[in-house]
């Protein structure tokens, strides 16, 4: 094994005297020549640890050595040897790609003689050569991350720290990021990659699983996954009942985790529990329960003690009368920006009580489509209908039917949770006793009481998410639109969120989601794959997976399907051209 690049011994970091420590007596090591994954739920202390290693924070107690240098006293020397990519895009959006590269080459003291070759190598490596003159702010999310990586790699660092580099990056760009990082490892660089996406942990040689500022597990992710052998099952054949079944199954004490996987349900059993049968999880007898191959996420959730056993239950809602009209329909939606066609003749129809996903890489046009469906962007041609009402002919009547949760945190950070709820209740036209009732109701259902007086900006991420959702559904809409609702959200918060959405769907609410995050797509009944402004495939997740099944790949994941379909489309276009 390689010599440790980073030694951490008894590290503690506290920000305020009365607050709990962000990092608590943590001892660990990071080795050279491999990718070390740093995984954990939000607020586990991943970013704080990264910043401490990068000598951007000073330890409150304990010691960190990076390449033999002490973080507390030798900050400048450490900055000279490492590359660091912050979680937020840290480059200058008002400078071009090339200007950013040049700036960082100067700051990092790249010798003139090496410049030309380095620029060329990195631009080829990141595939940014065509965009050197473009402002960094005008790049897509994936390209921004690649540029950030290029700037961090200008002078081959010994240690590369990447803080959640794949948040907001589509699967294709994500694979490219990993390819770039693997190329570095071959040169002996040590990489620390922090992530909330657990499938990425499986790409790492070693993982450090963190929770509440402590290390839960360190070692080979495969060894951790192997602990779950014989505890993971898939239930098939529950059909439309599967959402209700999942909710029921999770109430059983021996089931510690459960998620939707297309038409199947994935269940993780407690240690030592017998294999589940239909009666234990309350499934209809025709349900087939089969053992499944464990994955890292199963082990991770198990390490964190499983999903919380007190799920949020949505309130009883008014029945949405089942009419013939599709609750959401797009008819030939087209949007042009000058010569550029962002969305081209997109049509779909969503059934009542269905979760429908719009999938696509960054810049494919899914946000444009989504905005037209919300009534935020006027289509150049075509119609967007909610409950049969055209969003542009009867905007207020149509909008009253839908709840919308934006991708970015769009609540008022300086107002308390309660004040946000009151504001949104007012915005939806509730007043007096009805408003008080609706606010009290939301606080009760979403378990917001402990945080009612906390400013929304200071809430833990999971609660922010709950608050955003509760504000979006204040007026009890029959249709709910979610824009990347759990992007960058840790697995536990994500499960909690989707449990609630599933329950709402069970009561007849119709949901449309945009995402490039495959775990979210798994919760959808049907997805439309949007690429270069067109809808290139539409169907159930299993149907898409089946369509790319080959002998070499008998069990394609949804991500495989996504990438294969997009690449096939690209090749077809190249041939046509």
């Amino acid at each position, binding site marked *: 094994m390689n010599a440790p690049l980073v030694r951490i011994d008894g590290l503690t970091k506290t920000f305020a005297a009365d607050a709990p420590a962000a990092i608590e007596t943590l001892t660990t090591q990071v080795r050279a020549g491999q990718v070390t994954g740093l995984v954990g739920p939000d607020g586990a202390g991943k970013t704080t640890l990264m910043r401490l290693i990068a*000598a951007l*924070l000073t330890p409150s107690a304990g010691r960190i050595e990076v390449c033999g240098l002490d973080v507390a006293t030798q*900050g400048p020397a450490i*900055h000279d040897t490492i590359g*660091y990519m912050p979680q937020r895009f*840290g*480059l*200058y959006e008002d400078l071009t790609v090339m200007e950013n590269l040049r700036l960082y080459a*100067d*700051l990092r003291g790249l010798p003139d003689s090496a410049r030309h070759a380095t620029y060329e190598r990195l631009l080829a490596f990141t595939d940014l050569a065509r965009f050197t003159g473009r402002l960094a702010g005008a790049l897509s999310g994936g390209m921004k991350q690649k540029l950030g990586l290029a700037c961090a790699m200008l002078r081959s660092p010994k240690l590369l720290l990447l803080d959640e580099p794949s948040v907001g990056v589509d699967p294709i760009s994500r694979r490219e990021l990993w390819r770039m990082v693997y190329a570095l490892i071959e040169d002996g660089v040590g990489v620390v990659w922090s992530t909330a996406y657990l499938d990425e942990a499986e790409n790492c040689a070693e993982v450090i699983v963190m929770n509440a500022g402590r290390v839960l597990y360190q070692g080979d992710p495969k060894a951790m996954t192997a602990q779950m052998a014989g505890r993971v099952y898939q239930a098939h054949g529950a059909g439309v009942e599967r959402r209700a079944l999942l909710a029921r199954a999770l109430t059983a004490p021996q089931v510690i985790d459960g998620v939707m996987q297309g038409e199947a349900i994935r269940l993780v059993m407690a240690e030592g529990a017998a294999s589940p049968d239909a009666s234990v999880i309350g499934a209809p007898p025709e349900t087939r329960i089969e053992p499944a191959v464990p994955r890292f996420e199963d082990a991770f959730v198990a390490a964190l003690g499983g999903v919380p056993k007190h799920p949020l239950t949505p309130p009883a809602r008014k029945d949405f009368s089942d009419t013939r009209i599709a609750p959401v329909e797009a008819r030939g939606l087209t949007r042009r920006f000058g010569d550029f066609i962002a969305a081209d003749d997109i049509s779909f129809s969503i059934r009542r009580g269905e979760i429908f996903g719009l999938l696509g890489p960054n810049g494919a046009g899914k946000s444009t489509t989504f905005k037209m469906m919300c009534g935020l962007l006027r289509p150049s041609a075509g119609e967007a209908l909610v409950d049969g009402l055209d969003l542009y002919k009867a905007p207020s009547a149509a909008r009253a039917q839908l709840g919308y949760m934006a991708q970015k945190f769009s609540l008022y950070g300086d107002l308390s949770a309660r004040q946000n709820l009151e504001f949104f209740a007012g915005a939806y036209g509730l007043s007096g006793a009805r408003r008080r009732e609706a606010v009290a109701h939301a606080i009760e259902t979403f378990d917001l009481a402990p945080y009612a007086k906390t400013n929304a900006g200071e809430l833990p991420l999971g609660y922010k998410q709950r608050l955003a959702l509760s504000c979006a559904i204040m007026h009890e809409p029959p249709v709910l639109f979610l824009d990347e609702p759990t992007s960058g959200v840790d697995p536990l918060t994500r499960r909690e969120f989707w449990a609630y959405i599933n329950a709402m769907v069970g009561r007849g609410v119709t949901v449309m989601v945009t995402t490039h995050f495959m775990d979210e797509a798994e919760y959808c009944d049907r997805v439309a794959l949007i690429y270069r402004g067109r809808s290139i495939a539409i169907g159930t997740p299993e149907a898409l997976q089946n369509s790319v099944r080959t002998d070499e790949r008998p069990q394609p994941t949804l991500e495989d399907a996504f990438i294969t379909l997009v690449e096939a489309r690209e090749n077809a276009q190249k041939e046509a051209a």
Partner: protein
Amino acid sequence: MSEAPGSARRIRALVVKESLQVARDPSSFVVAIVLPALLLFLFGFGISFDAARLKMGLVIEEPTPAARDFATSLTNTPYFAVRQSTDRRAFIDDLAAGKINGVITLPGDFAERLARGDTAAIQLVTDGSDPNTASLTTGYVQGAWQAWRAQRSLGADKQSGGIEVQPRFWFNPELESRRFLVPGSISLIQMMIGSLLTALVVSREWERGTIEALLATPVGVVEFIIGKLVPNFVLGMVAMMVCVLASIFVFGIPLRGSFLVLTLFTAAFLAVALSIGLLISTVARTQFLASQIAMLVAFLPGLYFSGFLFEIASMPKPLQWFSVIVPAKYYVRGLQTIFLAGDIQSVLLPAGGVLLLMSAILFALTARNTKQRLD
């Protein structure tokens, strides 16, 4: 291209980066060019403490020769626009509506009172809702009245003697307020560019998260600060040049001192303004907060306590003491001297010395407070 040593190269790279950002950011253009132009024209053309033609109503109840003579003297000065009537009721509504600034009444027994030497020979009613104009009106009418009486008595007995006062105003012989308002507004402009813009560009790095990637490179605090200062210093000097040219050619203000002294003196003040901006940026991590603080600690004191709008000597004592630490006060004193009097060393050297001392103290504070870490 020669291989510059690491630090010089980093500073150069930061200066280039900062300049590109300034060039591309419309808001710095607004703060550096549009705002100065606006301020300069506002103070140069819009605000004036000189009397405009005051609109007066004149009531002559009995048109005696003496009353007519006084009326003529009023009409002949450039200070009044006079309308006449025999009944004061004709003017009451106009005065209430603010259409005239005041009403002068010459009573029916004007000639008799005048002959008696009565103090209240005429009555003046002014619109007190604007106290400034009201006192201005009072002063001008009193002046006109006294001038007229003096003239009459001279004409009456041709008796000379006593002391005659003939005031002479040096440095600004026409007493044009523009001549001291424009140099004063240059100080405001320098303060805006130095403090506001500097505070904004640093807090922007925090707000946009770019500081995190920057701090993880070998860049040191001093290099970072120099990178921020150089472009804004240049911008401030360019703005000064624009202001001076505008003062001389647009407003016709003489520059009696030398251009070199003006430049050096401005550089000293700009150093203070820049260091205030940097100090603000060490505490403000959002652009909004930075601009609020810059307004409070740099702009407003510069407006009120620099002595170009409000006479410091007539302020309450505590405020006079406070004005001692307002850098704009020294700059305005120096600017007015350079423009209107010339290179007077006895004024400029102490003022310049105070500015340099202030900037040294502020820079030291900034260097101590600027953090190279995120916590």
